[in-house]
């Protein structure tokens, strides 16, 4: 292990390290701690220039209550869920299939199709922006949740295919050969042999996709406008325009908006990290 395990270092260093950990964490998370404190302050603190001090009284409940009752936040949240969940399901389902095809079968175009997905996934959004917006308009899907979902599914299939294909590549191929010898059809091999083995990959990809799509801002402002269809990331910015100096409400709103992916991350942490670090170890 590197650096030297702390148990093997002098006692004084062990104590310093243990003391330093929480200090470093507080420094690192200072921006978030600041928002959290902002969100429980009363309005008057900001008027009296008590920005960075301790809240003069706890107003958390009423701030959050206002976010939920007097703003469009609930609608934006609902939109975000309506966008994120179908996208995750769609992109993961499509990539299970493409990943299976590219990971199991040997055919000439295999690597080129794979590279098409990988390369497409790294493309800058701006090169797609005008044509995709135009296409969505022509399909009559501009400013609809369906329009946004369809694009997200298509685009994320690139990354998901990269992920799934590499995962399937690492499975023991003998299993599939054995199934073939038994005369099991290819479709049933996918459904009954490979898919059950893919559960960890599906879990990893689902949380990862959830976070990515939930946090998307660019496509939200390109393909939608207004409260009926925009997700929470776009909502926060119009919230900002509406309540410019109401820092307590802005903070409460931001925290509410950030909560679902954070909850997702804590619930599925192991999978999340396994997904992100795919390929980081050899």
């Amino acid at each position, binding site marked *: 292990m590197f650096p030297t395990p702390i148990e093997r270092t002098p006692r004084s260093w062990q104590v310093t390290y243990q003391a330093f950990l929480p200090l470093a964490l507080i420094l690192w*998370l200072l921006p978030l701690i600041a928002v959290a404190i902002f969100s429980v302050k009363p309005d008057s603190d900001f008027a009296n220039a008590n920005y960075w001090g301790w809240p003069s009284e706890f107003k958390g409940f009423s701030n959050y209550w206002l976010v939920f009752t007097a703003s469009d936040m609930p609608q934006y949240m609902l939109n975000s869920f309506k966008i994120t969940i179908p996208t995750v399901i769609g992109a993961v389902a499509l990539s299970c299939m493409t990943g299976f095809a590219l990971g199991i079968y040997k055919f000439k175009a295999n690597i080129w199709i794979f*590279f098409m997905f990988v390369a497409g996934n790294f493309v800058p959004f701006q090169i797609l922006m*005008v044509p995709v917006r135009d*296409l969505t308009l022509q399909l009559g899907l501009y400013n609809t949740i369906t329009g946004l979902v369809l694009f997200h599914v298509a685009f994320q299939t690139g990354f998901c295919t990269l992920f799934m294909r590499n995962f399937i590549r690492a499975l023991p191929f003998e299993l599939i050969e054995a199934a073939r010898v038994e005369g099991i059809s290819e479709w049933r091999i996918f459904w009954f042999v490979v898919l059950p083995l893919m559960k960890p990959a599906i879990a990893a990809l689902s949380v990862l996709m959830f976070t990515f799509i939930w946090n998307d801002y660019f496509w939200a402002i390109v393909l939608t406008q207004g409260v009926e269809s925009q997700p929470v990331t776009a909502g926060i910015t119009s919230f900002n325009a509406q309540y410019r100096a109401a820092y307590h409400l802005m903070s409460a709103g931001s925290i509410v908006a950030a909560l679902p992916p954070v909850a997702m991350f804590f619930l599925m*942490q192991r999978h999340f990290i396994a997904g992100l670090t795919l390929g980081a170890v050899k």
Partner: protein
Amino acid sequence: MAQASVAQDHQSSWWHRNQQQITPWLFLAPGILFFLFYVIFPIFQSFNLSLYEWDGLGQAEYVGLYNYEELYWDEAFYTSLKNNVIWLLLYLLAIPAGLFIALFLNQTVTGIRLYKSLFFFPFVISQVVVGLVFTWFYDPTFGILNVLLGAVGIPPMNVLGDENWVTVGIIVAGLWPQTAYCMILYLTGLNAVDPEQIEAGRLDGAKGWKMLWYIIVPQLRPATFIAFVVTIIGALRSFDLISVMTNGGPFGASRVLSFYMFEVALSEYGFRMGYGAAIAVVLFLIMLAFIAYFLWSMYKEEKAR
């Protein structure tokens, strides 16, 4: 009836013989069609569109390379390009910073798992929220940055209103989540470092920096490679933070190509789709260099196995 069953037999055996050739294409079809439709074709459409003058509604007018010529004389384009280079260079700091934090956290003390996940936190949060918070930090009237600067005797500054500092200020906000990402990559990489090599290094008297540089870092190559890829792509994709924190200002000083393109094509300045597409093509070609390098390394690896 007998004939029908023969035909069916024939059919099923044809399927039986060819199913290993056909199945992959059946599985690939939906994914490929979707991807071609929404990702691959639009790239070519943008190339084509960059040769037109178009407001998004009326008739598009063919202008040849005029948009590129205009780009050549456009000051704002060079500001954006320069800022893209600054982003690329400074964003790479996330890699050593991530390694540093990973080394700091690579211990087995009580609660370390919670520390690791809390350090990763910034990455899970939307850049929109990150941008908002940093805007408050930098605020010239009440921002905490000026409080801290005042404490060490430096006069207050308006980071986001200062043409020379604004891009750096935004990049610092971006480095926060990106460092967290690199940290996770390195923490995973450190788990796989060969303990025998470390012991051998210790016996040879390697310690601290020497150990890190000659024994650990080479073994972290896969993690470094991925960190490099995601950081470069992230730097070139930067849009959310700029849009939220400054909207390209002051006077366009914090624009990058991705933001300038959006501004030209989809804002009150113009709806100049063709000109926007030309900017996007330039950004695409820059990114293509990195994508090609990445695919090339993948290809070498595929051939090696």
